[in-house]
Every structure is written in structure tokens, then in C-alpha cells.
């Protein structure tokens, strides 16, 4: 068993360290907790009007688990494990829906004679909040980390400063800069101001 997580970090950090160390009980418990992956994706799929069939969702859950498993060493304990995993659930689902949309468009084109024109107006995204998820993921890493900690994990700038080993002022500058990039990205995506 690993030592408890450092002050200010979620207890799940110690748990994840046990998983990464290959402790059998921790790995089994981890797998059990990842039940949230298919459930969140099923909920999200419902919200989107069921673009994915049950068999697609099962494949997607496996794919998402692989992503989570591969990135587990990056978990830093700023939030509960499931909160961290949720982001991957959403992005994986969006990627999957997007691929499926592309594939169906490709089939439509192939059914037509010659090279049919594209369908202007067809959007590749699912919802406004999905766009926010994607825009957040597209931020430069420094800004993304500060915004994630501040907004998604509810950390103060003092805590962020300590967690990242930067001054509070630098954290604030990155936060402001990141919000500006998000504003520009979302404004473009929504075709309006993001306010």
C-alpha cells in the first residue's frame, strides 16, 4: 500500500499509485470503479439522441478504458478518479461519433456516381458543452492545466501555485490567457460571442 496522498491532493492519488504498482487488489478495485465508463457513455449517448448503437458503446468503453489505462500515470490527484476519467469518456465518445459521421458520409458519397459535392452545413460536433470540452482540450498545456485546476477542480490560485510549482501571479496570467484562447475558439465554433 502506498503512503497517503500529499496534503491538498485527492486520496485517489495513493490508490492510483497502488494500481500502477500492480497491487492485485487495487487493480481489481480500479477495474470495478471503471464501471463509470460505460455508464457515463450510455448516459451521454442518450443525451445526444443515441447516435451509437449498444455494440458501438461496448467497443467504445473498451477503447476508452485503454486510453485511461494508458494515461493513468498522468493522474495527479487534483480531483476524484472518476472526475478525471469523465473527460476521457466524453472525448472518446465525441471522437467515435465523429468517425461514424464521417464514415456514413463517405458511404453516401460512394453510393453516388462520381464525386458528389460535400453537404455544406453538416456539423461535426454534438453540443455546445461538447465543444467546450474539446476547446479545453485544445488549449496549450500550461493554460489548460491552470484552467482545469481552477474551474473543474475548484482549486484556488494559491493551491494551483503550490501544485504546479509556479507563482500565483503566473497561474493567474495563464488562467487569463487560457480564457482568452477559449473565448476565441468557442466564439468561432458557436458563430457568436461565447458570453
Amino acid at each position, binding site marked *: 500500500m502506498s503512503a497517503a496522498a500529499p496534503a491538498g491532493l485527492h486520496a485517489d492519488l495513493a490508490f492510483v499509485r497502488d494500481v500502477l504498482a500492480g497491487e492485485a487488489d487495487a487493480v481489481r478495485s480500479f477495474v470495478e470503479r471503471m*464501471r463509470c465508463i460505460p455508464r457515463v457513455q450510455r448516459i451521454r449517448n442518450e443525451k445526444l439522441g443515441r447516435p451509437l448503437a449498444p455494440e458501438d458503446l461496448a467497443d467504445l468503453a473498451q477503447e476508452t478504458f485503454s486510453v485511461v489505462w494508458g494515461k493513468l500515470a498522468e493522474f495527479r490527484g487534483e480531483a476524484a478518479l472518476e472526475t478525471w476519467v469523465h473527460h476521457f469518456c466524453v472525448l472518446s465518445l465525441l471522437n467515435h461519433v465523429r468517425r461514424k459521421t464521417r464514415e456514413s458520409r463517405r458511404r453516401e458519397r460512394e453510393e453516388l456516381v462520381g464525386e458528389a459535392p460535400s453537404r455544406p452545413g453538416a456539423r461535426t460536433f454534438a453540443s455546445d458543452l461538447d465543444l467546450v470540452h474539446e476547446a479545453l482540450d485544445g488549449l496549450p498545456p500550461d493554460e489548460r492545466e491552470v484552467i482545469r485546476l481552477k474551474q473543474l477542480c475548484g482549486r484556488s490560485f494559491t493551491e494551483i501555485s503550490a501544485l504546479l510549482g509556479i507563482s500565483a501571479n503566473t497561474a493567474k496570467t495563464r488562467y487569463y490567457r487560457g480564457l482568452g484562447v477559449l473565448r476565441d475558439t468557442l466564439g468561432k465554433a458557436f458563430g457568436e460571442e461565447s458570453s
Partner: protein
Amino acid sequence: MSESLPEEELDIVRRILTGDLRREEEPARSLLDRSPAARAELEQLEGVERRLTEIVEETADELHRAAAGTAEAGAEEERILAGFAEAAGAAPAQAAAPTDGVPRLARLAAVVTAVAATLLAVLFVLDRGGEDVDPLDPDIPLGPTVRLDAPAGAVPDYEEFRWTYELPAGGYFELLILDARAGMALDEVFASPRLREPRWRPGARLDSLPDEIRWEVTAFDAGGAVLATGSGEARRSP
């Protein structure tokens, strides 16, 4: 970031947003009273914060519902978990009964070996792919990337689209071009047929492409399975 505001005014907006200065305090109050641009800047960024807050609320709601379980969860979910366990190199709790005759120590050794092998593989992939990641690509953090070479950023025109990815035999690419101009909601303006080479020239289509684009390339294997994706942005700047 707004380029129309002087630096000192941007700094005041920054201090309001980060909680160092309240709106009713000077110099915030007088700036917001006299400058519509500063008010707009602040309102837009607070709008982004509200969207982020919505994500937090949505995440909490979905995790709460997931924890409560759903009526559909059942045998299918157990099959999915068994797949997870296999991927993690361990059996889930409910499937851990030693029915296969494998001694516990041997199973534990297998778990440790599998975890170590997986971690080594992940570290290798991360190390190899890290420098290729386009920070603007929303797909990138979840899988292998197609590296987009050109066009990128401001270019005179989109003479040729080029990217780097080594396809397996029978594999192919698809190129998607989206309208990234403000107000166009990333509408699709071109979707390619299957491409065997990592390049495409718009030719006669050049004039129909908008001045700001997002373009995405997806690599497929011979069976149509997605291997990697990449996306980037470019704009005409004569």
C-alpha cells in the same frame, strides 16, 4: 485576448477575473464605467467561465447518475468489465474466484508483468509521439496522430495539403475541410474520397475554400478501422 484594449486596462480586467479586484473597487469601477470594450472583454471571459461551470455541473450530474446505476446495466456491463480486467491484466472482483486453477502467486506475477509491460508501452508511445502533438487538435490526447505539415497558420493560399503518417498496406486517408470563419459553425466544405498519398491539391476547388479553415485527416487501415487522426487550422493571409 482583446487587442483593442491598452495593456493597463487588460491588466485591470485580468485582476477582476482572478479575484484580485472587485468590480466596485477603483480602478475597476471607473474603467467599466467608461470603456464598453473593457466591459465586453470582461463579459465575454465571464461567459467562458460560466460554460466551464456548466461542464462541472454536467460532469457531477452524470457521475452521480452513473454511480446510481441504470436499469440497462447488467450482463452487458459485466462483459465490458471483464474486457477491462483483461486489458488491465487482472480479473475483476466478481470473477476472481480461482476456478482456472492458476495459483494466486502466478496470477499476481502475471498482473505485475502485464502492468509493467503496458506502462513501458505507454511510456514509449508518449515519448515517441509527444513532440508531434498539435495543441489545437481536439482528438489528439486520445490516440495516435497524423502530423499535419501544410497549410498551417497564415499562408498565401492552400496550394497543397500535406501530412505525415505511414499507412499500412491497403490503408487510406480521408481529408475533411471545415469552414472556420467566425459565424460559420465549422461547416463542412469538402470531404475527400479515399486518398492513398499523404497529400491533396485543391486545384479548381481552391477558390471555393474559405479564408479560414480547419482541416482534419483520418488514417484508416484496409478494413476501414481508424488508425490515427490529426487536425489543424490555416488561414489565407495574402
